[in-house]
């Protein structure tokens, strides 16, 4: 009962948050100086042109009315038409979403693997030079944002020792047999590992740039809770049974220490997704973020609106999913 009620409460907050996002995006775009019409028209347009466009886009109505009309359309899946490409915003955005999702998930996997490895290493050799080394690596990882990591990686593996591609999602000369936009996933399903390799060669640097700050956070928090757990009774017992220290950490301490890290990973994952905007730009990766910046440069308001709303939906859904899995995994909450 209690769980159900908190679930409903959580869904309501999510809906309120998304409504708030919609209001803010709508108002920011429409109220701030430089109305959308002025941005759309070429210089030298007549009064009559302006009026015609205003009626066409419903801008002659009040802001509240415009918002109601727009919201009703959005709820029916109609996000309007992009000004620069004259295509429906929804299909443009959905077409690019898989590229960004694949990049974000690859980055998340790298971050978890790297963070886990660092945390276990730091715990295994705690209070020694190795732990101090892990702490320094974490400190640098936390201090340097993804944008800078991206640039450093370009210099290292794009120029000094050119092993990876520094721009694009896939080599343009390749013929792609894909029916979906999930290139990486589909290349695996079709067992076309040659394509998988090419895709990864393009994705590994942007993914790593996104992953490094998150890996540092995971390592820091997980190491902290691992160090608390390895001194608890059951870990000591396992040790007296003659288990090796690494096994004590991996099999006994880790399952109990992982919960605080999980919540953190969820929240931080949304930051990682937010980071794709600039990282995709930096690596000319054809995803949502790159499209967002183009949309801003072209003053394509319906497209900007659609992308921001989609990002907000992803953020809130990820947060919701984290809260749910936390409730499911935490025995204290499960039996409440």
């Amino acid at each position, binding site marked *: 009962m209690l769980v159900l009620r908190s679930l409903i409460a959580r869904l309501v*907050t999510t809906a*309120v*948050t*998304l409504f*708030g*996002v919609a209001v*803010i*995006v709508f108002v*920011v*775009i429409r109220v*701030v*100086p*430089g109305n959308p019409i002025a941005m759309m028209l070429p210089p030298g347009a007549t009064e009559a042109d302006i009026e015609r466009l205003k009626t066409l886009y419903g801008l002659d109505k009040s802001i509240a009315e415009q918002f109601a009309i727009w919201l009703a359309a959005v709820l029916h899946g109609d996000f309007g038409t992009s000004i620069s490409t004259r295509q429906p915003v929804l299909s443009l955005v959905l077409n690019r979403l898989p590229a960004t999702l694949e990049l974000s998930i690859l980055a998340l996997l790298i971050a978890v693997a790297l963070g886990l490895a660092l945390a276990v290493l730091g715990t295994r050799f705690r*209070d020694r030079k190795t732990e101090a080394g892990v702490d320094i690596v974490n*400190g*640098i990882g*936390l*201090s*340097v*944002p993804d*944008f*800078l990591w991206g*640039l*450093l990686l*370009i*210099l290292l593996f*794009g*120029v000094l020792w050119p092993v990876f591609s*520094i721009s694009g999602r896939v080599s343009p000369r390749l013929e792609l047999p894909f029916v979906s936009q999930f290139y990486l996933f589909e290349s695996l399903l079709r067992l076309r590992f040659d394509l998988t390799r090419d895709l990864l060669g393009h994705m590994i640097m942007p993914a790593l740039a996104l992953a490094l700050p998150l890996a540092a956070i995971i390592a820091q928090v997980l190491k902290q809770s691992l160090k608390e757990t390895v001194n608890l009774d059951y870990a000591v017992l396992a040790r007296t049974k003659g288990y090796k220290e690494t096994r004590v950490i991996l099999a006994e301490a880790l399952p109990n220490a992982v919960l605080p890290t999980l919540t953190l990973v969820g929240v931080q994952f*949304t*930051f990682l*997704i*937010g*980071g794709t*905007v*600039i990282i995709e*730009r*930096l690596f000319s990766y054809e995803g949502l*973020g790159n499209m*967002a*910046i183009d949309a*801003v*440069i072209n*003053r394509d308001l319906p497209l*900007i609106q659609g*992308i*921001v709303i989609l*990002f*907000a939906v992803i*953020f*809130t859904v990820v*947060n919701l999913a984290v809260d749910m899995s936390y409730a499911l995994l935490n025995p204290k909450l499960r039996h409440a």
Partner: protein
Amino acid sequence: MLDGRGALRRRAGLRLWLSGGWLIVVLVCAAFAPLIAPQDPLAQDLMLGRLPPVWMAGAEPGYLLGTDSLGRDVLSRIIYGARVALLVAFVAGTATCLVGSALGLAAGFYRGWVDRVVGRLVDIWMAFPPVLFAILLIAVLGTGLTSIMLAIIVIDWTRFCRVVRSETLNQAQMDYVQSARVAGFTRARTLLAEILPNVLPTIVALLTLEMGIAVIVEAILSFVNLSISTDDPTWGGMIAEGRISIYQAWWVLVFPLAALFLTVLSFAQLGQGLRDRFDPVLR
């Protein structure tokens, strides 16, 4: 154990000195740019385009770190770029700190509807991808330094608000706050004279971190060409140009990137160092 802690503190001390030292260098460069810069940062000379740094073959003396494709001196542009970076760091950082801390203090101390409204706003703000939000704001506000600083304030106040709120909540439970109330302090005076000084160390550490974030946000916006005009020297703008000519003239990318990297790292290390220093557990 005691030894370990001593080593930790020495390392932390070194970290503070190194990062503080670099930031002073940047500050001096920004303040006295016209005196320090060897060349005019805007002067173009196509005959001197893409000159390498002085220690490489084909360099010209007087252009220590080489020139970009338009023949502008890289070192001078980095020195002038420090002005934009630090201006944004101090002005936007401080303003963001004031707005966020004020809301956080109010929400944590007065609770009730203030807390609910602020909390809801923070939730909504957390649903925006920050870089995208910044670019959106710049698109409607127009490019320029004022827009950038405004965008940073509008986006990042939540960072202060969340931490200051929870810190204030903690402090408000303490005995000294009860005593102040019993002694007849008004609520406002309790908040400003009793709680604020105890939250201040956290705020200062966060402010230092925020300045680093402001520097990087400005660099990102100049990188996507939404900052000030492309002629004016900014580190982000230089990096964008260097990214294009990376195979012909690596120095156009590497040196501004190094300046940006060290500055952001220094602000972050200083912030972390201050936080550790103020942390009663470590002290």
